[in-house]
């Protein structure tokens, strides 16, 4: 295989090369700009050149001169490719012609940088990887349980302190959190419950009418909303609304070392950050549930009047007969427990946020999903409990 005088034509800034074997050696003439803008095309050219240089006819040559005279700009990307090129020829057989001093310095820098060892992450077999992931998950589950217990203990401790030294209660943060979780949430909870009450009444009226049992719709709405629907949907709304904001707040404070700052100032992050939120939520959810009860019954009454032909007076008489105080208490008694679960999940997820923005997003998602799920589990446990005690 012999070398012809191979020339590739390029516009002035396009990189080019030609290879001229002479007696005893060869000259590789390079041209054009060797920068990151031309690097995509250069990489292919360099691959071609390397093939040429590694061919037996070229390796037999005593000396190869790289002619840089026509080379324009060189940046680190170009220097890397030039280094790839010159690395194919042993150093003692290389000559460099027309290389400007700054370019020589740059090439030396790149040569030194290229020789830094590449660090690859250790490769694991899938089984080991799976077991590692499983183990990590178990450890994180244990750590999370410990954190939840710690938070719960912290809350209990603060409550005990509050009873013994009422002056040490952090009243203002509690009121602030109550405003955010209760007062600000009231309009949306009222609207949602009104619609839910109206929808249940409309559906109920539609079916009960077939049996001529129109009036039983009042019983259904009263018992269903007071016992189950109002508290459950309010808890879901609060989990999405306040739970997510708790996680995001505590998480970003954790990321910016604000939680650590509290610690070294001598304040207990659980007492300062978690307790006001948790207590506020436990006060807020019963209040919101009560509002939701009122709104859904009002919604049902409006629908019965307009759509079902049941006058409001009749509706109220029927309601008084169908529900008793116990029905209302059975529903609202669940609210503080659901609030506690939402608050604990939200705060513990927030305090587990690691350094990245992605982790904050993931924790917030987990917080909402987990607290809504736990709210439904708590509701189920209460259903079993009430059935057992016969209410």
């Amino acid at each position: 295989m012999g070398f012809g005088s191979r020339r590739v034509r390029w516009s002035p800034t396009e990189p080019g090369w030609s290879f001229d074997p002479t007696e005893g050696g060869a000259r590789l003439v390079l041209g054009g700009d060797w920068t990151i803008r031309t690097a995509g095309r250069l990489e292919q050219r360099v691959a071609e050149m390397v093939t040429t240089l590694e061919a037996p006819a070229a390796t037999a040559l005593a000396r190869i001169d790289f002619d840089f005279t026509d080379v324009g700009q060189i940046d680190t990307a170009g220097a890397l490719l030039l280094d790839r090129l010159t690395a194919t020829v042993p150093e003692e057989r290389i000559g460099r012609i027309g290389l400007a001093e700054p370019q020589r310095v740059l090439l030396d820098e790149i040569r030194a940088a290229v020789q830094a060892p590449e660090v690859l992450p250790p490769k694991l077999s899938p089984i080991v990887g799976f077991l590692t992931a499983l183990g990590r998950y178990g450890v994180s589950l244990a750590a999370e349980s410990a954190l939840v217990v710690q938070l719960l203990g912290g809350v209990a401790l603060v409550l005990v302190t509050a009873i013994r030294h009422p002056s040490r209660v952090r009243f203002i943060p509690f009121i602030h959190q109550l405003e955010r979780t209760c007062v600000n949430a009231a309009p949306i909870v009222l609207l949602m419950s009104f619609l839910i009450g109206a929808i249940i009444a409309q559906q109920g009226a539609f079916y009960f009418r077939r049996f001529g049992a129109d009036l039983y719709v009042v019983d259904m709405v009263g018992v269903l909303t007071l016992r189950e629907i109002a508290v459950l949907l309010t808890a879901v709304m609060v989990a999405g609304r306040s739970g997510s904001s708790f996680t995001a707040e505590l998480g970003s404070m954790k990321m910016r070392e604000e939680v650590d700052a509290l610690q070294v100032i001598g304040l207990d992050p659980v007492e300062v950050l978690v307790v006001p939120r948790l207590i506020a939520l436990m006060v807020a959810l019963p209040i919101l549930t009560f509002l939701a009860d009122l709104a859904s019954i009002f919604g049902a009454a409006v629908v019965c009047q307009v759509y079902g032909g049941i006058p409001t007076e009749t509706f109220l008489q029927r309601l008084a007969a169908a529900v008793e105080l116990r029905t209302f208490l059975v529903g609202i008694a669940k609210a503080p427990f659901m609030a506690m679960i939402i608050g604990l999940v939200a705060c513990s997820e927030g305090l587990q946020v690691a350094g990245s923005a992605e982790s904050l997003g993931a924790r917030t998602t987990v917080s909402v999903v987990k607290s809504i799920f736990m709210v439904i589990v708590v509701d189920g446990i209460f259903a079993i409990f009430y059935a057992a005690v016969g209410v």
Partner: protein
Amino acid sequence: MTTDDPAGDLAADEPILRVRDITVGFGDKLILEGLDLDVKRGEILGFVGGSGTGKSVLMRTILGLNPRRGGTVEVFGHDLDAIDAATRTGIERSWGVLFQHGALFSSLTVLQNIQVPMREHMKLSQGLMDDLARIKLALVGLPPDAGAKFPSELSGGMIKRASLARALALDPAIVFLDEPTSGLDPIGAGEFDDLIAKLRDTLGLTVFMVTHDLDSLRSVCDRIAVLGDRKVLVIGPMSTMLTFDHPWVKAYFRGARARGATARGN
């Protein structure tokens, strides 16, 4: 190559960055008023000024991150208000920025951070990008195993270096550095300065550096600009600073700390 490489359009003796009559304010408070500034090709310009005088605001205004009330910014001879989107992209490829706190993307590893500009702006093979990112890492003096780490696992000095590596990813014509050596130990800061000087010498980089580090100002900066009273008070080499008659400039360059830095240099 007109819009693809805006840096290439500029004559050699024209300033790479020309700021004219810049006015920036927030609310009823003016931060900068009628500010003029030229940055020459291939120079390292140090930018100093008291805290809160608007050094970072000026940098952000040049980069188009802050709104300005008046004035023009010309980068590579292009008025930033009068260019089309393609030229704007071209300019954004040709400048690199090191933010004060690094601003590395927290969900990407260091190597992935460095590859973000390459991936978005260039058509390069993955192998070449990997090699390039590793070279940048070595150039800024980070150990090879730092590449696989996430920003939250790095120390403050390593974050600065990784962020510089990202700023240099596309071999820009000009880099803006916002307090690059703050938070570094004096030896690390000295290495950083050497690195900047070396990059300027080998790559022909122009450097706009906001700094408070007197050692950096003395050792690597070709010219120093002092910001005060909402404009550039004085611009010139260190010798000009030492003779300029302004209370703040005097206190800064001829105070006790400055004398210490100068004495160490002699």
